């Protein structure tokens, strides 16, 4: 067993996007070469190489998944999670607006907290259902927020950074919550591929 260990976050990122047939063998290849590079050069150089591989590999892996048609199942699951998540967000927004904080100022403060809380729950649930679902969910959230900004759904005039925060932090929360909570751990199929 090597005394070097590859960057955990990059490994989790790989596990997020890799389809099951790829996962074990590809990660194993990377870890093996990471150890060789860490011994030959330095652990920091090997870490940079690992991150480089992760960033450059992901577009190819996503492209391959799209060609295989795996994305249809993930997209369908994401639609289901998205509908439930939006219903919960709408219900929470209604409760806040009517009961907890009827004043617009308090609503402006509480709305992002509710939004991020439910997007993180949605991302977690999506990743639990199926790998890759959270990527589609993040895309749906981004499109929804963009549409709401364009149609000026918010009756209160808000600064650009407030809207930009929803647009960026929402999808990021969906993507990063499963990674942070370790949902995307290797499963039993991994060692068999």
């Amino acid at each position: 067993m090597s005394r070097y260990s590859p960057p955990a976050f990059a490994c989790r990122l790989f596990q997020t996007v890799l389809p099951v047939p790829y996962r074990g063998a590809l990660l194993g290849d990377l870890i093996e070469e990471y150890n060789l590079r860490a011994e030959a050069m330095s652990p920091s150089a090997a870490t940079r190489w690992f991150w480089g591989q992760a960033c450059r590999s992901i577009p190819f892996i996503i492209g391959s998944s799209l060609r295989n048609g795996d994305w249809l199942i993930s997209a369908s699951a994401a639609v289901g999670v998205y509908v439930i998540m939006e219903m919960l967000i709408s219900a929470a927004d209604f409760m806040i607006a009517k009961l907890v904080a009827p004043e617009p100022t308090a609503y402006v403060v509480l709305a992002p907290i509710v939004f991020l809380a439910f997007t993180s729950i949605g991302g977690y649930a999506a990743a639990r259902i199926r790998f890759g679902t959270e990527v589609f969910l993040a895309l749906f959230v981004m499109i929804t927020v963009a549409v709401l900004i364009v149609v000026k759904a918010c009756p209160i005039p808000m600064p650009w950074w407030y809207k930009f925060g929803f647009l960026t932090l929402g999808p990021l929360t969906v993507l990063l919550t499963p990674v942070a909570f370790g949902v995307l751990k290797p499963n039993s199929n991994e060692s068999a591929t």
Partner: protein
Amino acid sequence: MIVRREIEERTGRNISIGAVYATLERLEAKGYVSSSTGDPTPERGGRAKRMFRVEAAGSRALQVSEQTLHSMTADSKGRWETI
């Protein structure tokens, strides 16, 4: 890993492992290569190695590609001079 390093050494280009796996998967879907799984090892974090073998259909397709490439590049020097 060996496939990726071999391509890097032969071409001198830094190749991502994702590109290699995506290509190998497409070749496998077409029946040009087949894969089998080795035993998990501690050096690989307990993960198994996936080994690829070129099939007869893959060899034939490679020969056709080589012949096409050869016919395209044969006499290329004379053509460039003409242009």
